[in-house]
């Protein structure tokens, strides 16, 4: 009886959800006409005739994320960075990553992972540098690369981090490099404006009606969409090594981290 009720309620929920989202148009996505906001973004994402307004990026999401609402994304990146710094603060005093004698999972899994990791890195870099052309971008590429850290920890054991030369301090340094690169791109128009006395805005990408400053939209005939490619690559560094840091700390053995986490006055 109970199973019948569960089955009927699941079926009813699915049917109601399907009805609400399609026939009744509850979410407002019914119909083929594009909404005014979407039309604006589609018209401005890549439009060489409107240099004051466009982001020169065929990927409309990248245009919105790093150009139209770029400051929002900048703050998100800073929040992510602060979260990593908090994790480091909690784990302060933990010096040793690894230890113990385990060698990881069986040979089959290790060989497959060895084949997988180079592909994973290549795809992550490709997502990052094509972020202004195709769906994806810095954060997605960083999350893709972070999978490598989980694979290393699970398949090859935590000892493998030191074996392949990845350490928490190096990961934090690379992550900070990414954030500094983002800041450099963001402040370049301001520095240019201060040095030349011209009008320029923070995080400016192309010419505005009252400012002639712009990043190059194309280099050697390749579309790089001004700041978008630099911001994507920098975000890729910041996010991937941020995740690396956290996953390395989270994969530590309990006996390694217990003493430092409890504090100096405990456990002695």
């Amino acid at each position, binding site marked *: 009886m109970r199973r019948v009720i569960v089955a009927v309620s699941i079926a009813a929920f699915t049917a109601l959800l399907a009805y609400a989202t399609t026939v009744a148009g509850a979410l407002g996505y019914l119909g083929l006409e594009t909404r005014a906001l979407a039309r604006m973004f589609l018209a401005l994402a890549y439009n060489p005739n409107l240099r004051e307004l466009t982001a020169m990026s065929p990927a409309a999401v990248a245009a919105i994320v790093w150009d139209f609402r770029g400051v929002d994304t900048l703050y998100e990146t800073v929040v992510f960075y602060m979260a990593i710094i908090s994790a480091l603060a909690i784990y302060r005093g933990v010096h040793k990553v690894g230890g113990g004698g385990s060698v990881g*999972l069986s040979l089959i899994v290790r060989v497959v992972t060895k*084949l997988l990791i180079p592909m994973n890195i290549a795809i992550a870099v490709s997502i990052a540098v094509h972020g202004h052309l195709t769906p994806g971008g810095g954060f997605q590429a960083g999350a893709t690369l972070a999978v490598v850290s989980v694979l290393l920890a699970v398949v090859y054991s935590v000892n493998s981090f030191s074996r392949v030369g990845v350490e928490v301090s190096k990961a934090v340094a690379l992550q900070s490099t990414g954030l500094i690169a983002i800041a450099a791109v963001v402040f370049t128009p301001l520095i240019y404006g201060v040095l030349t006395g011209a009008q320029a805005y923070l995080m400016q990408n192309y010419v505005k009606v009252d400012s002639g400053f712009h990043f190059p939209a194309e280099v050697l005939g390749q579309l790089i969409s001004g700041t978008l490619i630099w911001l994507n690559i920098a975000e890729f560094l910041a996010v991937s090594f941020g995740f690396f840091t956290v996953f390395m700390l989270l994969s530590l053995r309990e006996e390694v981290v217990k003493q430092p986490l409890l504090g100096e006055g405990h456990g002695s």
Partner: protein
Amino acid sequence: MIEEVVRYVGLAIVVAGCSVNLIGAIGLNRFRNFYLRLHAATVSTIGGTFYPLVGLALVAFSSSELGSARFFMGGVLLVAAFLLLMLAPAGSHALARATHRAGVARPEPAIADHLSEDRGG
């Protein structure tokens, strides 16, 4: 003519993959212990995902109305199929091996357990 044949062969593989998926789902519900259910799940990943991807690649290759984009689509499907063929067995192998080592799932009824005999257990 040859395009039609390739397309219908591809669609037939997709349909066969769907039936294999259904069989795998029934097995996942009905089988008695962890190892048998894992077997049913891998039937779905290889028979129900790898073969349909190959079939869809055939459909993509035979769709001449797509122009040269069909080779791109078919190639992506074949790469995805290859990755799945490589990764899915490794994943289920890791699951089965870890479960056996930890001893959390008893294979019952077990006719033979050569792995624990090899380990001297």
